[in-house]
């Protein structure tokens, strides 16, 4: 890998978040909601009604909480995926593609390996998702390592390839009979059980929570995590300490892809039970946003995922109850990201107030 590229790994330390992270994250979120409230006001809605309705919808009862967590689950995976790559200084913005590839791999494994007892079938199906996602991360990793190809572009391109390819698979070879572009249903042995009926919440959330802990452990307690963080902060010094940069980059992107792929698998196994063309409303992109809002920390990502999940599920309730267009929650998401992206700007505002 060329010197030039080596020097371009690693983030500028004044980008996104440093220092008193939590305070600024919260401020960013608050400001975003304030701006959102202004938009609501200007277009003739009561922000208080809207926000209260959203909050109640998301957390007010068991059904709400269940749906919130259901919506949050895939985002936990994709945000962790982005995080793992980011810690090594890499921008994996192809989480959506890795998610989808994991989902289709799990679907196929689930359907075609019938007759296995659940205790084998479930882990096998999840593994298929991880492997496929990991492969989808391996390609950009190798391209960067061998050809200095910037991963921002290669991961994004592969994401599109994944979208079209899975769409093809679902519309042709693996299509179930009928009008809908979807596969057959997964056999029960490959399903993740619903744990909170009548909500859609499955044991997938447990996998997600376990993964949060695992990622935290990986980054902070293992040799590999140590090396990845070293590469992310200062690849030159890392190289000097004998750390193999190429290996680190490849591992980081493969792990990242595998986590996203696992997310796709879990989403199919737990929530949808079959692969429906276009089932993902952009979980990969959400993951990116959530990782940033969460301060690039596994537990922060968990909290931010729940926030975004709440926006989605609460948003649906709010739309029905108050008539506010559902898209306000997407608008809020965008605002949150932008305000998180300019911590320096926020800091500037505060300095002027002093």
């Amino acid at each position, binding site marked *: 890998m060329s010197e*030039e590229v080596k020097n371009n790994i690693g983030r500028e330390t004044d980008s996104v978040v440093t220092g008193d992270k939590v305070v600024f994250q919260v401020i960013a979120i608050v400001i975003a909601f304030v701006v959102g409230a202004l938009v609501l006001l200007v277009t003739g809605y009561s922000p208080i009604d809207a926000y209260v309705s959203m909050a109640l919808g998301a957390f007010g009862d068991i059904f709400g909480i269940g749906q919130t967590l259901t919506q949050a689950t895939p985002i936990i995976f994709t945000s962790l995926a982005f995080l793992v790559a980011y810690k090594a200084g890499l921008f994996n913005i192809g989480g959506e593609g890795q998610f989808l590839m994991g989902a289709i791999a799990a679907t196929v494994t689930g359907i075609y390996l019938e007759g296995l007892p659940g205790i084998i079938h479930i882990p096998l199906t999840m593994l298929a998702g991880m492997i496929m996602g990991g492969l989808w991360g391996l390609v950009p990793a190798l391209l960067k390592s061998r*050809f200095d190809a910037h991963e921002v*572009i290669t991961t994004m391109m592969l994401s*599109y390839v994944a979208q079209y390819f899975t769409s093809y698979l679902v519309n042709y070879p693996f299509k179930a009979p009928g009008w809908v572009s979807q596969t057959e249903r997964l056999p029960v042995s490959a399903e993740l059980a619903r744990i909170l009926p009548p909500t859609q919440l499955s044991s997938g959330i447990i996998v997600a929570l376990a993964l949060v802990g695992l990622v935290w452990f990986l980054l902070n307690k293992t040799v590999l995590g140590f090396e990845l963080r070293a590469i992310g902060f200062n690849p030159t010094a890392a190289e000097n300490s004998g750390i193999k940069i190429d290996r680190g980059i490849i591992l980081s992107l493969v792990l990242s892809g595998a986590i996203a792929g696992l997310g796709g698998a879990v989403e199919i196994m737990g929530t949808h039970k079959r692969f429906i063309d276009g089932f993902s409303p952009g979980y990969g992109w959400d993951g990116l946003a959530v990782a940033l809002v969460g301060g690039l920390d596994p537990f922060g990502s968990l909290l931010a995922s729940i926030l975004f999940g709440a926006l989605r599920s609460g948003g649906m309730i709010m739309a029905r109850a108050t008539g506010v267009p559902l898209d306000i929650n997407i608008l809020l998401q*965008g*605002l949150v990201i932008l305000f998180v992206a300019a911590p320096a700007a926020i800091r500037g505002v505060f300095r002027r107030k002093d």
Partner: protein
Amino acid sequence: MVTVTDFINAGLLAAGIRLATPIVYAALGGMFSERVGIVHIGLEGVMLTSSFAGVVASYYTGNPWIGIIVAVLTGGLISFVHAVLTIKYVGDQIVSGTGLNILALGFTSYMTQIIWGNRGASDSVQGIADIALPIIKDIPFIGKVIGTHSPLVYLMPFVTYACYYVLFKTPFGLRVRAVGEHPTAAETAGVDVIKTKYIGVILGGMLAGLGGAFLSLSHLNLFTRGMTGGRGFIAMAAMIFGKWMPFGVFASGLLFGLADALQIRLQSLGILPPQIILTIPYLLTIAILAGFVGKAKAPSDYKPYKKE
């Protein structure tokens, strides 16, 4: 019996040109931004917002040309925000771009519902009608390909040439290229690096806005939720495939447009799965980046410029 001429014909090529138009404009816009060293992942959001703004303007004034102007200006404005976040505050370019994309989707969808109700689309508005070129449209085959198109389509080669002219024949273009590649050297030569970066990004946004305007005021004449459908990202691929050079970008945009037209045609014929065709442009872009098809060196290293 299906023959080759059933799907590769003049109609296909004409459709390809039409589908290429928004991509070419957006890609030219992205090119300017990247040429001053700013990655513009938010191109998608810029296009979408411009599409929307154009429709709103046409809706309230009844004049599609005002719509076009508003769309172009909107593109510049949104890009200005991106520029502020990334030039002045050295915010991560990727983060800012992503935020803009999501915000654009949310905002335009929300406002569409506010203005026109919950249909996922706006009312039809006054659009730009296609024009037919006399004499040319009667030439066999070629006439069918290029004879009848929107004025914005015919504008494409001129805008492309204008980009080439500005970039390679004017002092401003020289400074743009200098600033993107080696801002410190440009600074010591007395070039106002920060100002040049701002102008580059805003100009790029305006071009992308033109692409967005085409979608909602010419190709169709209404706005639908998320109507850019990832074209902003395709434009980025076209930009890279075209090696950040105006004519290259133009050509690769046409290629992507053609692929799009081809897959639609194939879909109706039911021969090859359209999705597979659609992956080709992306795989090609990856191949280019890997150096399989000629070396693609980005015009800059995207590092934020810190003034000494």
